[in-house]
C-alpha cells in the first residue's frame, strides 16, 4: 500500500507537526536492521485530536517517540511547533519535551514513592529558571483539580485506582501547558467506564485548552472522538481520515 501524504492542514501557519519522509531503522542484530518508519509523511494541526491506529509493528510507537523528541529520525524532516527536531542536540530535545510536549503512558508511569501532587509537580522541577517548590506544588494542585483529583493530592500511586492514576498522568502531562500531548494506549489498562472518563479528559484538553492530542490506540471509542484518524501500515500513514 502506498504512503498517503494526506494533510488535514489548510495553512502552514496552523501546523503543529510537519513530517516529511521520516525514516527510522532499529538494529535487530549487528547485520540486520528493521525499518520501523519508511518515508512517513504527516501533518497535524494545532488544537485537534488525532488517533493513530494500525496493526502491531506498523510503526505507531516509533512515530510517537519521534513526535515526542525521545528519538530522532534517520532521515526526513520533522518540524514540531516550527522547530526542526533533527537540527537540535539531545539536551535541546529535552527542553522541547519539557516545554512543548506532554506524555501520557499506558501504564501511567507514576513514581511510586511520590504523592500525586509531587508526581504532577515533577516536570516543573526540571525547568530553568527554577520555579520555587511552593509555586510548583500550587500549580500541581491546580492541575489535579482540573482532572477532578483535589481530594487525592497526597495519595501515592498504590493508593489510587487505575483511572485515578491515569488522571494524575494527564495532569502531569499538562502541567507545563504543552502544545502537544502524546498518549500511548492511554486506556489500555482501564475498564470501559474509566476509559471514557480518560478520553473525555483528553478531549477536553483539545476543546478547552487548545492542546493538540495525538493518541496511539486500538480503542475504537477514542477514534470516534478524534478529529482525525491516521491509519498506519508498514511504517507509513496509509490513510488520514477526518471524522
Amino acid at each position, binding site marked *: 500500500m502506498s504512503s498517503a501524504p494526506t494533510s488535514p492542514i489548510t495553512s502552514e501557519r496552523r501546523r503543529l507537526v510537519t513530517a516529511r519522509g521520516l525514516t527510522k531503522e532499529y538494529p535487530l542484530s549487528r547485520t540486520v536492521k528493521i525499518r520501523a518508519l519508511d518515508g512517513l509523511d504527516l501533518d497535524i494541526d494545532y488544537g485537534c485530536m488525532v488517533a493513530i491506529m494500525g496493526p502491531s509493528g506498523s510503526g505507531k510507537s516509533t512515530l510517537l517517540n519521534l513526535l515526542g523528541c*525521545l528519538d530522532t529520525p534517520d532521515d526526513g524532516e520533522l518540524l514540531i511547533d516550527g522547530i526542526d527536531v533533527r537540527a537540535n542536540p539531545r539536551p535541546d530535545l529535552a527542553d522541547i*519535551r519539557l516545554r512543548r510536549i506532554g506524555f501520557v503512558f499506558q501504564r501511567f*508511569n507514576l513514581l511510586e*514513592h511520590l504523592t500525586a501532587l509531587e508526581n504532577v509537580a515533577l516536570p516543573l522541577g*526540571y*525547568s530553568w529558571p527554577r520555579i520555587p517548590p511552593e509555586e510548583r506544588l500550587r500549580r500541581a494542585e491546580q492541575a489535579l483539580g482540573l482532572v477532578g483529583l483535589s481530594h487525592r493530592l497526597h495519595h501515592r500511586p498504590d493508593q489510587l485506582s487505575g483511572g485515578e492514576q491515569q488522571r494524575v498522568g494527564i495532569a502531569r502531562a499538562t502541567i507545563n501547558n504543552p502544545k502537544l500531548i502524546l498518549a500511548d494506549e492511554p486506556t489500555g489498562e482501564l475498564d470501559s467506564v474509566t476509559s471514557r472518563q480518560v478520553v473525555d479528559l483528553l478531549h477536553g484538553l483539545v476543546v478547552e485548552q487548545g492542546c493538540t492530542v495525538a493518541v496511539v490506540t486500538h480503542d475504537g471509542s477514542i477514534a470516534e472522538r478524534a478529529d482525525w484518524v491516521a491509519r498506519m501500515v508498514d511504517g507509513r500513514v496509509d490513510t488520514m481520515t477526518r471524522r
Partner: protein
Amino acid sequence: MRMILRSMARRRFRTALTVFGVAMGIFGFVAMGALAEKARIHTRNAYAYYGAYIWVASDQSFFGWGGRLPMSLQERIEAMDGVEYASPRVVGPLDLEDMVNPFGLSALIGLDLNPDRNQLIMYRVRKGTYPPEGSRGHILLGDMVARKYRKAVGDTIEVRHRPFIVCGILERTDTDPDHAAYVSVEDARELVGMESDRCSTFAVRPLRGQDPDELAARIDRDFQGVHSIPPSKVIEATEAAMAWFNAMVLAGTAVALLASCPSIVVVMVIASSERAREIATKMAIGARTRHVFMEFLAESVIIAVAAGALGTLLAYGATGAVNAYTAEKGAELFRVTPRLAVSALALSLLVGCVAGCYPAWRAARTDPVKVLRSV
C-alpha cells in the same frame, strides 16, 4: 533532596547495609588516623620538650637508661663556652612490674628542683605545686601516671616501698612527661640505687645564639664515654616518625577507599538498572541527562557522607573506649582530633563523588525509547 531521601528510603535495608559497609571503611580510616594523630601529637610535643636541650648520656646507655655519668662532669660542661647550665637527671622505671606493661613504661625521673634549671618549667602544674627546691619525699606526677595510680594531690604513693607525698599533678602534655613521676635527684638516686656522685643524664641548656649541634659535637669530642643528642637529631627522629605516621594515614585512606567505593558502585549500578523505567519517565517529561546524573551522584554522596559521619562516630566511641581501658594501664593510644574528623567527612565526600560517577553516568545514558518500549 527530600525526594532523593525518599527514593533511598524505598530500599532502606540495602541503603542501610551500604551505609554500614562504607562506615566500616571510614571507621578504619579514623581509627588508623587516630593512632597516627596520637603519635604525631606525642612526637611534636616531645620535640618541644627535648628540643630545648642537648641531652648528654653515657655512651653505654639508651637515652640515659642503663648508664651512669659522674657528677663531676656537670662542672666541666658548665665551664664550656656556650653553655648556660647542665642539669643532672636520674632515670629509672617507676614500677619494676611496669617493665612488662605493653601499654608503656612509667618513668621515675630525678630532677634538679632549682626552678631556673627545672626542665619541666615549660609545663603548668594542673593541681598542687612543683616539689619545692631542696625538699625530699615529694613527688610530682604526670597526667597519665596520676590516672593510672588514681592519685590526687596530698595522697601518698609508694615507690619501691618508700612513701612519697603527691605535691602536684602536671597538666596534660601529650608526650613523655605524662608518663613520668618526678622527684628530687637525691630521692631518685636512693630509689634506683645510684651512688651519690652519679646521674643518668645531663640536660645541657645552650646559651642564646649558641649552635646546639656545634656544642654537642664539642661535648662528644672533649669527654670520653658520653654521647650527646642535639635538637637537630631530635628533629631527624621526629621527621622519620612523622613519615611513618603519614604512611599510616595514607594506608587508612586506601583502606577506606578500597572498602567503600566498590559497595557504592555496585549498589548504585543496581539501583540504576532497577529504576530504568523511572529514569526513562523522567527523561520523557523533560529531565536532562545532567538532572539524572546529578540525582544519582547526590544519592551516592548522601550515602557516603552519612557513612562518613557514622564511621567517625563509631570510631570516636570505640577509640574512646579503648583509651579508657588503656589509660588505666598508663597509656592512651588514640586521639580523634577535629582535623581528623573533618578529614574523614571530606574523604567520605570524595568517596561518594568518585564512586557515584560511574553509576550516575550509566543512569544518565539510559535510552528512554528502549526502556519505555519494554515496559
